[in-house]
């Protein structure tokens, strides 16, 4: 498992190294480069931040500073299921922060992070456009309205049961 992750990281870095030559080494190219990495690999790994810093000859901490300033950059790989908790005005008023806290506790991760098994990742968003259903949670492509703490349990449990079912089927197929 660990070797898989290392190989994956290396593949990402190799890909970035190839593409970096499309950019000049001016400071002004920092954000375009970060956007390119985010677009191709969905997140900025510590290794890729370091690589960009070396390429542009900017301190690593400055690259990190710029990247953390903008909401569009993520620092954890996306999970299999991506949970977006809305904290727009209507959802905020209806207790969206409580829902976010519920997910944080249930999954053991904070806003913007990914569970260690890479099943779930979570982020807070500002308005998904259906305020009448507040508080709203978007899981992958499904919109869940009027979310209550019990529904949070239900959503996570649903995916876990589904995963167990798939594993069981896989085992049955192998044995049968």
């Amino acid at each position, binding site marked *: 498992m660990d070797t898989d992750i290392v190989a994956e990281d290396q593949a990402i870095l190799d890909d970035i190294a190839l593409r970096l030559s499309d950019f000049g080494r001016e400071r002004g190219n920092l954000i375009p480069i970060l956007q390119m990495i985010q677009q191709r690999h969905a997140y900025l790994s*510590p290794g890729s*931040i*370091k690589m960009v*810093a070396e390429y542009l000859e900017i*301190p*690593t*901490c*400055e*690259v*990190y*500073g710029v990247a*953390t*300033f903008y909401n569009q950059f993520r620092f954890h790989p996306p999970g299999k299921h991506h949970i977006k908790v809305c904290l727009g005005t209507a959802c905020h008023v209806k207790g969206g922060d409580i829902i976010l806290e519920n997910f944080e506790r249930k999954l053991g991760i904070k806003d913007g992070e990914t569970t260690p098994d890479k099943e779930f990742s979570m982020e807070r968003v500002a308005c998904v456009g259906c305020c009448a259903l507040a508080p709203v949670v978007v899981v992958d492509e499904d919109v869940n309205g009027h979310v209550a703490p019990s529904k949070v349990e239900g959503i996570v449990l649903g995916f876990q049961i589904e995963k167990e079912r798939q594993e069981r089927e896989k085992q049955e197929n192998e044995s049968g």
Partner: protein
Amino acid sequence: MVKLLVDNIEVEVDEGKNLLQACLDNDIYIPNLCYIDGINRVSASCRLCFVDIEGVDQPVTSCTVRVEEGMVVKTDTPPVRRLQRTALQLLLSVHVVDCGHCPANKKCELQRIARFLKIGLKPKRLEQFLKEPGIDTDHPFLDYYPNRCVLCGRCVHVCRNSRERSFLAFARRGFDTIISFYGENEAPDLSCGDCFACVEICPVGALVPKEKEVP
């Protein structure tokens, strides 16, 4: 040389000099945190060095003004004080007031400015808002306390100046803003152990040398 009138005292300074520096050089104190002498582009981020200038409608930050012949400046008008007190209270609302356990106690700029502006260190009208975690111990030579930090940026500046490249930078945004060593604390040739310029220039006690482990 140009002549200007500050609080009814005539002072003579070099033309084009920074107004804040000109006042400080002439023993006229104006509260300030983020200003660094000799810097070309001031950040003007602490919002404490306001003054009233005759002919200008509203108070202005003195660190962004160059002196001119015949300028009439007042440093203690009610609008100026009001802005300064609010700015300081906003800083204190994100500051953990635990002076007894802080190495900067008694030499802290915040204490000095609070005394100067006659406000308490725990302003009641603003909610306290602290960051988690309250300490960053990732650096091999330094500890960073985000809830003491006033985000003046002096450490970032001094580090860049004395080391050719900065080993510190601002990270994140808004209330979450911190000073970060990200990626720099692993450098094998890190020479912070002989420098500590950032610790020296910090107006509060946000950066502290790590206590040496007893072998």
